[in-house]
């Protein structure tokens, strides 16, 4: 056994400490090459990368399991409940944000277009910005903040109070009962709320551009109608579908596995899971927006 251990040591270092898991032994093995300062950095980066890849793999499996369970029996009732909670109950906040986004766009674009003598293009500029980008992105961020945080917290509390384990012991698949309806409801609700956002945003632009600043109403709506193509609308809906899947999956994943976090236990783990859910969702919305846009262009 001792011989085997000695064989592991590199040439010239036979009398030094054998390899061990952890940092100290590694620095002892290569003391003279100046790697002791760099190797922890690479170890950190490597460890982080491995964790990230592991997490992405886990999220992918989690999403796959939840997605296939959407089509199991007895799901309609729960999906309907979740559509009401994620979709219908988020509509007010989405409409409010859409209205003011459209109004701000109307103001900003009006004064910008005036400089180029192109005020007539106001309808085109507002509608294209909203339908292609702002509608799907802002809707997704608003729902992530409102419903996504609630998903993570609710599932996290169910986990910590052993209610998820209780479901398992009753012969109920927790992923089927808790996660699948939320993912299905998000995939249904996000495009619908995006459509609301687009519509109300265009009306907001009309209020500032036409009612407040005096652009011709006919020109405004003609430009909206003529510049928007099915490609733009389809692109916006594809984005909102992708965002719906990402937000619901991330938020449910964070809540479901909050007991395995390193940064807190119990109530704190639920809080941290909720924070992570919203932050990661928002970042991934923007990252995936770029990826999807580059595919659509």
């Amino acid at each position, binding site marked *: 056994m001792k011989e085997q251990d000695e064989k592991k040591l590199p040439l010239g270092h036979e009398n030094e400490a054998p390899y061990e898991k952890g940092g100290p032994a590694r620095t002892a093995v290569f003391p003279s090459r100046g790697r002791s300062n760099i190797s922890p950095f690479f170890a950190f980066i490597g460890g982080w990368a491995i964790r990230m890849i592991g997490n992405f793999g886990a999220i992918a499996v989690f999403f796959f399991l939840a997605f296939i369970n959407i089509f199991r029996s007895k799901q309609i009732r729960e999906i309907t409940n979740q559509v009401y909670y994620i979709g219908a109950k988020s509509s007010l906040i989405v409409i409010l944000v859409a209205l003011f986004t459209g109004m701000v766009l109307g103001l900003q674009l009006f004064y910008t277009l005036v400089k180029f003598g192109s005020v007539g293009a106001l309808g085109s500029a507002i509608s294209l910005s909203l339908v292609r980008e702002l509608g799907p992105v802002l809707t997704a961020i608003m729902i992530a903040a409102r419903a996504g945080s609630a998903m993570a917290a609710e599932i996290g509390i169910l986990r910590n109070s052993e*209610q998820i384990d209780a479901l398992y012991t009753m012969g109920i698949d927790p992923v089927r009962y808790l996660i699948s309806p939320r993912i299905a409801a998000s995939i249904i609700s996000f495009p619908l709320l995006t459509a609301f956002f687009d519509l109300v945003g265009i009306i907001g632009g009309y209020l500032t551009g036409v009612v407040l600043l005096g652009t011709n109403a006919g020109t405004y709506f003609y430009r909206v109608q003529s510049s928007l193509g099915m490609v733009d609308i389809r692109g916006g809906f594809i984005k909102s579908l992708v965002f719906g899947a990402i937000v619901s999956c991330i938020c449910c994943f964070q809540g479901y596995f909050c007991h395995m976090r390193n940064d807190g236990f119990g109530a704190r783990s639920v809080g941290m899971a909720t924070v992570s859910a919203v932050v990661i969702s928002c970042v991934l919305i923007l990252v995936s927006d770029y990826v999807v846009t580059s595919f659509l262009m």
Partner: protein
Amino acid sequence: METPLIEFRNVTKRFNGKTVLDNINLSIYENQVTTIIGKSGTGKSVLLKHIIGLLKPDEGTILFQGKPVNKMKKAEWEAHRRKVAYLFQNNALLDSMTVLDNVAFPLRQTTNLSKAEIEKRSMKRIDDLELAEAVGKFPSELSGGMQKRVALARALVTDPRIVLFDEPTTGQDPIRKNMILSMIIHYRKKYGFTAVMISHDIPDVFFISDRVIILWEGGVGFEGPYEEALKQNVPMIDEFLRSLDGFQDQLTGLLSREAFKMHYSAMLGAAVTETKYSAALFGVRLNILYEALGAQAAVAVLKALGEYANRYFNSIGGFSARHSRDEILTIFPHKNLAEARKLVEGFSHELENGVVDHIRNIAWKNSDAATCFDIDIRAGVIEISPEDSIEEIIQKGRAEQEIISTHRCDLGGKVQ
């Protein structure tokens, strides 16, 4: 040799490098009540969670009817798992649902029964556990004891073949504690399920247990019938059992078995030659009462019997303890057989006025439930010698038992 229903072979489980279960080997047999006891943190709940698959062993194998779980196909394992119900230590009730919804939930999700049938079955369990008034309430609106009973109702609603009870009586008052234990044994007889239970309610839990497993320092300290555990004379088992057994039986107010032993030893130590001692073993078949009037009534009668025995015999220097679920042993120091018989005769009159009247009252109140039953209170009076062990006294007492007070469904009560 009978194949165990569940078998642990060299099972080891670690959490963050700390070994909780260390090379555990144990067997759980079908149609038995197996009780797991052990200090806090010895892995009792962890062991139970391995049975239902909430945790998987780091090393070793768990066998279900002789077949290793890790070699089962998913469908086969799921089929086994559906036969098992689990009562969590902290109840794990779904807190956004009412009591009725909680109890009905497993039926709604895992069966295709009609809505009416699901409600009927759920209400039956709710009534069995005396939760009718809490049907529309949420778990947070209930006391800890009521929450425990809701969890119990939910665990039993699917008529499981194996029920894992993680401290089912924790947080209950002595009456309900005994009621729940009675109910477990009643349902086990009625539905024939196998029960695995974690409990600290010594001695009560042993009256209903067929086998006891004592977890000690991550391993199995003892496995077998309770009586054998007492005979083992292993210091750590002895110390552990004694530490759990208090000085007083919470339900009846009588001495605990350990306190009774101490009193008996002290009495023998102070004995003068030729001093006469007597004993009486009282018994009442509580299962008759349970079947006829329910667990609550049965427990109330036992409580009344204990209180009367305490009141009547303590004044003359006697001391009593419950020695099984429905037997009370009383020792009369300095009384010969004739004196003891006279005391018991007087006691039987007290019983007639107190306990049997109490039974009659309960029976009368429940007359609409077709509660026609006969029940006797028996006593075996014997003379004892200092060499007699408590077990020998009990055996002799049982052999001498005769009816001292009775309730007949058609005639009312009479004293024989």
